[in-house]
C-alpha cells in the first residue's frame, strides 16, 4: 500500500510507524519529574461492612507518603462520586464494600514497588454480609439490600424501562399461529483492553491547574466530570489522553482511582501516577452485557414474522454506572426488532443491583445493540427450526425491503437506509451457501458435525442527536477545527479519541478528500482538551458518524473561504469559480485557477481580502447528527463440533458489511477483523462468572480467555455500500458492527451442528464443557461457578 490517495482509499495507517517501532506513548510511558506512585487496596469480599481501617503500619513504611481512605476523602466531600447513570459510586468504601475488588484505600509512595508492598500493611476489619450473586434472586423479598447507603432503599431494584406497544404486541401474539420462546443469557464479559487503565494527576499548587493524563476514550467528558467531582474550575483542568491501547468502552467512565490520584496530588503537591494491573482491570472496571433475556417471536405458519416480545433482567452490579445516553437506561436495546418488518414489538428491561463490579455497556456493543441483535438472531434461528425452514430463506422472507427506508420500527427507531436482501444474497453467494449445506448433509452421514450459522444485524451508531441523547447532561455532539497553515499544510483538531481505530489516518483522509490535498499534508490532533474542541468522545462507533461529519463540514467551510480568496486572487466573482479536487478555477477555463496551497498563502499574505474572509482559511464545526446511522451486515460462520469432547473449531467466517461509504477500506476491514475475533471470543470462551460467595472467577488472562489468531479462521469479507442519506460523507460507522453481529452467527452455527442431538439452545460461552453438557441435555449455567 502507498500513501498516494488524495482522499478516500487504502493507505497504510499514519500512526502505525510509531506503534510498530514501539514508539507509542501511553500513560505509563509519561514520566513527570517528582512523580509519586500509587496502589489500590481492594476488597477481598463481595459484601461486607467495614468496621475499622488501620493505616498506621502502612504510613510508617519509609517510602509511603500518604494513605488515603474513604474517611480522608469524606472530609473533602470526595468519598462518593456521580456515575454516568445518575447513581453514585463509592470512590473509596466508607461504610460497606459491595463487590470483590472494590477500592478501599489508596497508598501513595515514592515508587510503585513500595506502594504495592504497603498494601499488605493496611489492616481492614470486615464484617461479612451475605452477597447477592445471582441476578435472578436480586429482587427476592429476603435478598440482602446492597445499596443501603441510599435513603429509604429496601430492595435491589434500579429501574424498569420499556419500549414498543405492549397491548398491540400481546394482540398479535394472541392471534399468531406460531410462537417460539427462549431464555437467553448474554453473560458478563469484559472489554479487556490490552492497555489497562492508568492515570497521572498533576495539580500545580501555584497556578491551581490540574493536568490529568489518563487513558480515556472521552477526554472532554472527563474534564467536565472531574470539575464536577473535585470542584476545581473546569478552565483549570486539562485532560490529556495520549496513545490509548484499546478501549472498547472500558475507558469511558472515570474510575475511583482517578479521583484518588487527583486528591493525592493535591495532598502531596506532586504528580501521582497509578497504573492498574491486569487483575484489577478484569475484576473492578466496567464489564459488559450481563443480560438475562426472555424472548418470544410470533409468526404465521408460513414463516412471516409478526412480532417480538422481550423481557430482560439486567445485572448492573453494585453501582449503576453504565455509560449510555441518559434517557436510555437500557441503551439502544429496543433495536431488538432487528432487520425485520414486524407488526408489533415490545421489550421491557428491569435493572438490578448485585454484588459485582459496576459498569455495563462497554465492549463494542453500541449501547446494547449487541445484546439485542444476539437475541433476535437466536430467535429467528429457533423459529426456522420450529418451522423446519432454512434459516437463510426465513431471513430473506422477512428482511426489510429497500423501498421501506427510511423505516420506523415498532419500537421507534428510524432506520436511515439499507438494502438488506442484497447483502444477504451476496453473503450466500460468497459463502457458497448451497454447497455448504450439501457438504453438511454429506458429512452428517459420516457422523461428522458441521454447523452453518447465519446472522443479520442492524446497528445503530453515531449518537446523538443531542436533543435526544446526552451523557450526564452533555449533549452528544462533536467538534472539529481545521487550520490551514500559510504553506497549505493543515492541522485538524478533533474531539474524539482514537484507541487504535486509526483516527490520524481516517480523519486526515476526510480533510484530504474535501480539500484535494494529500493525507500526509494533514495532521490530526486529538486527546488533549487544551488543544481540541469539545465533544463526547469515541465509543458507540460514533467517531466517523459524528466527528467525521464535523471534520468534513469544517473542511467544506475552508473550501468556501478558499473560494472567496481565490476570487480575489483571480479577480472574478466567487460564483464564477468551480471546484476540482485541490483547486478553484474559473468556470470554463481550467487553466485559470489556484491551488489550495496558493490560496492558503494568499490568505495569509497582504492580498486585499473581500468580505467574508478576515485572513486565514481556518474553520470549525460542531456536528449535531440529525439521526443515528444504521450500518448493517450479513454474517455466516462454519464450525465443526466434536461431540465426544465438545470442542468447536471455527472453519470459516464470511462477513458482508455495509457501513456506507468507506473512507479507508483497510481500516474498515481491520475493524471488522477485530470485531469478528471478539465475536468468536464471546461466543466460545469469554466469561466472568462468580462463585456463591461473590468471588470473581475471571481475574486473569488464564481465566478470562481472549481468542488468539489460532482460534480464528482467515476472514472472508465482502461489502455492499448504501450511503447514509443524512451523513455528509455517506459514512455510517463500523467500529462495533462485527462485535455486534458475529456472536449470533457463531452460536447459530454450533446449534446447527448440534441439531442431530436435539439441542435447541445453549448459552455462551460455548466452551467444550458447555457444548458437551448441552448434548447431554443438562446445559451449564454460564454466569455462576461450575460445581
Amino acid at each position: 500500500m502507498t500513501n498516494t490517495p488524495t482522499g478516500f482509499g487504502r493507505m497504510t495507517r499514519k500512526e502505525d510507524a510509531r506503534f510498530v517501532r514501539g514508539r507509542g506513548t501511553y500513560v505509563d510511558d509519561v514520566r513527570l519529574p517528582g512523580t509519586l506512585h500509587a496502589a489500590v487496596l481492594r476488597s477481598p469480599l463481595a459484601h461486607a461492612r467495614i468496621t475499622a481501617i488501620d493505616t498506621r503500619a502502612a504510613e510508617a513504611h519509609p517510602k509511603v507518603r500518604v494513605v488515603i481512605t474513604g474517611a480522608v476523602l469524606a472530609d473533602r466531600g470526595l468519598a462518593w462520586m456521580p456515575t454516568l447513570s445518575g447513581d453514585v459510586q463509592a470512590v473509596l468504601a466508607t461504610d460497606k464494600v459491595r463487590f470483590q475488588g472494590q477500592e478501599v484505600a489508596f497508598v501513595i509512595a515514592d515508587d510503585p514497588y513500595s506502594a504495592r508492598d504497603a498494601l499488605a500493611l493496611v489492616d481492614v476489619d470486615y464484617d461479612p454480609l451475605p452477597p447477592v450473586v445471582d441476578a435472578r434472586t436480586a429482587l427476592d423479598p429476603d435478598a440482602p439490600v446492597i445499596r443501603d447507603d441510599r435513603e429509604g432503599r429496601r430492595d435491589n431494584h434500579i429501574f424498569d424501562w420499556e419500549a414498543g406497544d405492549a397491548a398491540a404486541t400481546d394482540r398479535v401474539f394472541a392471534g399468531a399461529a406460531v410462537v417460539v420462546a427462549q431464555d437467553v443469557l448474554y453473560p458478563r464479559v469484559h472489554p479487556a483492553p490490552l492497555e489497562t487503565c492508568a492515570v497521572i494527576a498533576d495539580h500545580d499548587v501555584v497556578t491551581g491547574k490540574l493536568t490529568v493524563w489518563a487513558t480515556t476514550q472521552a477526554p472532554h467528558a472527563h474534564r467536565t466530570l472531574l470539575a464536577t467531582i473535585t470542584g476545581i474550575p473546569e478552565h483549570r483542568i486539562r485532560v490529556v489522553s495520549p496513545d490509548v491501547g484499546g478501549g472498547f468502552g472500558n475507558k469511558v467512565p472515570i474510575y475511583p482511582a482517578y479521583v484518588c490520584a487527583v486528591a493525592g496530588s493535591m495532598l502531596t503537591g506532586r504528580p501521582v501516577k497509578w497504573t492498574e494491573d491486569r487483575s484489577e482491570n478484569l475484576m473492578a472496571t466496567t464489564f459488559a452485557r450481563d443480560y438475562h433475556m426472555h424472548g418470544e417471536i410470533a409468526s404465521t405458519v408460513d414463516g412471516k414474522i409478526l412480532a417480538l416480545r422481550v423481557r430482560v433482567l439486567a445485572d448492573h452490579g453494585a453501582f449503576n454506572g453504565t455509560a449510555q445516553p441518559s434517557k436510555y437506561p437500557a441503551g439502544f436495546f429496543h433495536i431488538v426488532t432487528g432487520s425485520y418488518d414486524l407488526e408489533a414489538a415490545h421489550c421491557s428491561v428491569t435493572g438490578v443491583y448485585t454484588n459485582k463490579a459496576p459498569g455495563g455497556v462497554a465492549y463494542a456493543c453500541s449501547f446494547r445493540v449487541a445484546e439485542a441483535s444476539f437475541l433476535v438472531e437466536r430467535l429467528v434461528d429457533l423459529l426456522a427450526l420450529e418451522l423446519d425452514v432454512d434459516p437463510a430463506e426465513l431471513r430473506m422472507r422477512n428482511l426489510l425491503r429497500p423501498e421501506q427506508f427510511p423505516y420506523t420500527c415498532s419500537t421507534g427507531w428510524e432506520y436511515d437506509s439499507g438494502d438488506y436482501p442484497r447483502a444477504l444474497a451476496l453473503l450466500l453467494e460468497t459463502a457458497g451457501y448451497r454447497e455448504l449445506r450439501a457438504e453438511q448433509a454429506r458429512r452428517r452421514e459420516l457422523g461428522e458435525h458441521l454447523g452453518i450459522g447465519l446472522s443479520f444485524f442492524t446497528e445503530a451508531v453515531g449518537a446523538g442527536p443531542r436533543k435526544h441523547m446526552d451523557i450526564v447532561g452533555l449533549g452528544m455532539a462533536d467538534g472539529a477545527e481545521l487550520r490551514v497553515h500559510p504553506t497549505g499544510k493543515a492541522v485538524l483538531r478533533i474531539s474524539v479519541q482514537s484507541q487504535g481505530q486509526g483516527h490520524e489516518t481516517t480523519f486526515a483522509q476526510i480533510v484530504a478528500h474535501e480539500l484535494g490535498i494529500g493525507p500526509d499534508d494533514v495532521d490530526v490532533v486529538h486527546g488533549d482538551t487544551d488543544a481540541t474542541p469539545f465533544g463526547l468522545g469515541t465509543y458507540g462507533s460514533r467517531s466517523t458518524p459524528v466527528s467525521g461529519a464535523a471534520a468534513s463540514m469544517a473542511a467544506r467551510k475552508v473550501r468556501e473561504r478558499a473560494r472567496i480568496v481565490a476570487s480575489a486572487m483571480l479577480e472574478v466573482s466567487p460564483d464564477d469559480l468551480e471546484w476540482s479536487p485541490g483547486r478553484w478555477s474559473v468556470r470554463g477555463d481550467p487553466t485559470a485557477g489556484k491551488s489550495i496551497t496558493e490560496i492558503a498563502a494568499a490568505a495569509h499574505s497582504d492580498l486585499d481580502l473581500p468580505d467574508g474572509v478576515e485572513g486565514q482559511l481556518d474553520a470549525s464545526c460542531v456536528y449535531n447528527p440529525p439521526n443515528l446511522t444504521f450500518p448493517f451486515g450479513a454474517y455466516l460462520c462454519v464450525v465443526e463440533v466434536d461431540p465426544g469432547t465438545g470442542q468447536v473449531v471455527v472453519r470459516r467466517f464470511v462477513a458482508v458489511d455495509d457501513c456506507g461509504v468507506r473512507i479507508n477500506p483497510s481500516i474498515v476491514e481491520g475493524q471488522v477483523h477485530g470485531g469478528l475475533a471478539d465475536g468468536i471470543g464471546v461466543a466460545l470462551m469469554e466469561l466472568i462468572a462468580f462463585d456463591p460467595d461473590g468471588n470473581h472467577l475471571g481475574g486473569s488472562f488464564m481465566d478470562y480467555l481472549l481468542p488468539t489468531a489460532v482460534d480464528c479462521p482467515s476472514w472472508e469479507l465482502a461489502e455492499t455500500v448504501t450511503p447514509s442519506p443524512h451523513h455528509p460523507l455517506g459514512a455510517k460507522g463500523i467500529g462495533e458492527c462485527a462485535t455486534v453481529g458475529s456472536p449470533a452467527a457463531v452460536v447459530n452455527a454450533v446449534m446447527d451442528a448440534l441439531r442431530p442431538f436435539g439441542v435447541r439452545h445453549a448459552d455462551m460461552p460455548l466452551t467444550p464443557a458447555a457444548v458437551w453438557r448441552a448434548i447431554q441435555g443438562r446445559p451449564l449455567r454460564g454466569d455462576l461457578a461450575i460445581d
Partner: protein
Amino acid sequence: MQVPASFQYRKATSVAHALSLLAEYGPEARVVAGGHSLLPMMKLRLAHPEALVDINDLAELAEIRVEGGALVIGALVRHAELLSSAVAGRHFPILHDAERVIADPIVRNRGTVGGSLCQADPSEDLSAVFAALRAELVVRGLDGERVVAARDFFVGPYETVLADGELLVAIRVPIRPSVSAYVKVDRRAGDWAVGAAAAVLELAGGVVAEVGIGLTALGARKFVAAEAEDHLRAGPPSGERFAEAARIAAAHCAPTADQRGPVDYKRHLAGELVARALRGAVGRAA
C-alpha cells in the same frame, strides 16, 4: 502494576554453584528456570521466595542426547527445543504431540522441561507424558545424585519429592520400541488442559507388553491411570479392550469441578481421551 515483593537474586555458574547457593539461602530460596510459572506467582504474591537462584546459564543442563539406551533431556531444555528435537520426536512422538499444545510460542521459547515437572501443577502436560513414558528423573543435591521414577516424583498438587536444596538435572526416557500419542482438550489455543491423556504402548507379538497411560488435569493419582494399564497389559491392543481401559480410567480418576468444566464432563473426557490416545498411538504402528 503487578510487581513481586523484593527478593535476592543470584546467577549460578555451574550445577555445583547452584547447589551451594541453594544451601546458602536455605529453604526460602527457589530455583528459577524459565520463570513462566514462578514469576507470575511472585507477581500475584502467591509465592514469596527470599532468593532466586537463576540456573539459565547452566549449559550442562540444556542438552538433549541419547546416552546409555535412554533419551536424556536436560532439565533446562526449553519446550521449543524439545518440540524441534528430531531425535526426541523419532523415539517418542508423544513428546511432540504434547509440546505442540503446551502454551504458546512465547512461553515455549523460555519455559523449561524441568521447570514444568518441578512446578507439579496438576494441569502440567509433561507430568502425565513422562509418567506414561515411565521416565526417570535425575536429581542432584549436595550429597550427590539420585534417580526417581517419574511416577514417584509427584507427591500432590505443586508438591514433589525434591528436598530443599535439590536440583532436577535431567529426565531419562529408556528407549524401547513403542508407539505413543498425547491428546488434549483446551478451551482455546495455548490454554491449560481441561483434560488430556497420554498413551504409550510397547507391542510385542500382537500383545501389549507394557503400557503407560497418563492423565492431565483429571485428578489421576500420580498422573497415571494404573488400573487401566493393568487391564491392557498382556492382552491384544483391540478396540474393545481400549474402550474398557478408557472406562476404567474414567471410573478411577477424581477430577474436580472448576471453570474448565464440571466433574461429569471431565470424567467423560478421561474416558474419551484415553480411548483416543490409545487409538492414536496404535495408529502410529506402521
